[in-house]
């Protein structure tokens, strides 16, 4: 046939081996514009799989572009049928996925606007939570008491070990750091003031807050996020149950109730660590240390610490639940929600700590 081209294929055509290029065929087709038909002879093909099919797809596309007819009859049985199956559904066009990446300034603008647009969503969530707490006090909130108790158990007693460890070590560090300085003046007894005030006013609440942000805030975001992925939250909505009441409210309440108790516990452990350092390393009597601590602390200091702890608890639960409820529908989104929950709550804790410390100083409490 003068206007025909026969391609003889032989050997192994598998993706685990090396596949030939289509350049040679392309060259032939271009140098001989008289070719009107391409046929194939595949009798010498020993093994084949998708490797043959993709190569063939490229050749067929080349031929189609130049209006050359093709005949697959000479190829192994099934090749033609699989090619046909692959082309049965036309490719999706205009998916909007092949656009160029926008320029740097546009991206900076986009992400700034996205941050800005996130604020109303956060405020909306804050409003919903407030209304939900209102419904709770009116006894109208739909939630299960057993859920609340389970969450309290999870955030409270189950956190005691890690809170003990961190508080003990922080108390120990504060005592040692202070003692070395105070010893220069022979004022070791003031270790009790330093540790007592430091733990009760600042460190107890701060350390507990950061532990709970990592432990509980992250867990809230991951739980709610996974429920979002599994459409469990939509299932609540279709039943007419507000997910805020059923899922967020018990988590908020649990943390608000438990945080002050954990802070109090943390203070106590920190003071005990200070006592241990004073008694063992700096020769201060147990009773002496106790007396000095009692003199240094009064109820207002404890109230300052507890109020800080409560605020941190609210912030952690808020950030964890917010990020969980905002989670997208994929495993990756759950990871992002969890990360974002921890980062948001730690940032909010530190900002709140600074603001409250300044306020309390100004008020002279």
């Amino acid at each position, binding site marked *: 046939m003068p206007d025909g081209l026969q391609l003889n294929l032989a050997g192994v055509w*598998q*993706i*685990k081996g*090396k*596949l030939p290029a289509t350049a040679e065929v392309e060259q032939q087709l271009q140098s001989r514009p008289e070719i009107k038909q391409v046929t194939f002879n595949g009798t010498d093909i*020993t*093994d*084949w*799989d*998708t*490797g043959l*099919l*993709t190569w063939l*797809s*490229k050749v067929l596309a080349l031929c189609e572009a130049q209006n050359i007819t093709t005949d697959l009859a000479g190829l*192994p*049985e*099934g*090749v033609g*049928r*699989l090619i046909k*199956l*692959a*082309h*049965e*559904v*036309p*490719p*999706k*066009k205009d*998916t909007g*996925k*092949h656009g160029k990446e926008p320029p740097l300034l546009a991206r900076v603008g986009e992400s700034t606007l996205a941050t800005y647009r996130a604020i109303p969503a956060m405020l909306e969530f804050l409003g919903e939570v407030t209304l939900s707490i209102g419904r709770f006090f009116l006894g109208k909130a739909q939630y299960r008491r057993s859920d609340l108790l389970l969450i309290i158990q999870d955030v409270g007693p189950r956190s005691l070990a890690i809170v003990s460890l961190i508080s003990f070590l922080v108390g120990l560090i504060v005592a040692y750091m202070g003692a070395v300085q105070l010893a220069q003046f022979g004022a070791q007894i003031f270790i009790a003031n330093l540790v007592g005030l430091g733990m009760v006013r600042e460190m107890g609440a701060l350390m507990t807050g950061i532990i709970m942000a990592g432990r509980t805030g992250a867990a809230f975001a991951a739980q709610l996020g996974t429920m979002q992925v599994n459409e469990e939250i939509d299932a609540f909505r279709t039943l007419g149950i507000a997910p805020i009441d059923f899922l967020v409210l018990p988590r908020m309440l649990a943390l608000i109730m438990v945080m002050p108790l954990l802070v109090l516990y943390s203070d106590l452990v920190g003071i005990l660590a200070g006592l241990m350092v004073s008694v063992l390393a700096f020769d201060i009597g147990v009773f002496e240390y106790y007396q000095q601590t009692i003199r240094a602390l009064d109820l207002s200091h404890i109230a300052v610490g507890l109020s800080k702890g409560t605020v941190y608890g609210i912030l952690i639960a808020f950030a964890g639940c917010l990020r969980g409820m905002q989670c*997208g*529908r*994929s*495993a*990756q*989104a759950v990871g992002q929600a969890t990360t974002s929950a921890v980062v948001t709550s730690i940032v909010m804790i530190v900002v709140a700590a600074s603001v409250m410390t300044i306020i309390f100083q100004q008020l002279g409490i």
Partner: protein
Amino acid sequence: MSVTATQATPAAAHIEVKDLTMAYGSFVIQHDLTFTINHGDIFIIMGGSGCGKSTLLRHLNGLMAPAKGAVLYDGTSYWDSPAEEQERIKQSFGMSFQSGALWSSLTLAENVALPLGEYTTLSPAEISEIVSFKLSLVGLAGFEDFYPSEISGGMQKRAALARAMALDPDILLFDEPSAGLDPISSRRLDDLILELRDSLGTTIAVVTHELASIFTIGNNSVFLDPETKTMIATGDPNWLRTDCPDEKVRTFLNRGET
């Protein structure tokens, strides 16, 4: 995959399940399963809900170890083989999970390309051609750059099939591939399964409830019974439908109408 090898040995046993007992801890799911899947079979795993079909699939793809008994591939027992041998056998499997199990941080193209990148020496350009071809086989041409969360459940399922077929495995395992697909996609899927078997000689095991599908594609099957916790029939589903001695199987295959 070797087409000539499968043609040279028709009806040779590919996967043999011998006295298999499946259990989670001491909780037995199914016991004493013995059946053979031949080269080029389209093997249907059927039975009522909760009878252990998916668990059986997890035993066939090496994810779960048998509590008792053995699973043999071309005569080699998977769990009695050294680790390298297990790796080699595993590469001949392609599995599509019930809910797709696409990696959500990767686009569809990247999902299909990952096994190709790991186990072949193809260039990125060749890989992307193969990926496009596989996606067009399941009717998803043009969706290369979508993330799994951006497409529908049925499309995710088909993309998962494309990933399972990425390496042209000798054995394809499908867990309810057509559940959630529209009738046309579902018919196309049946065509594709038949074609993969006919052209490439792939051995295929399918968990499915779709009776139409069972009779169209299946040429061999096993029926698991949740009450007696063992298999009560094996063979061609078209034959079981009319001539199975066990009434439970006949009822199942006739949608409860006798």
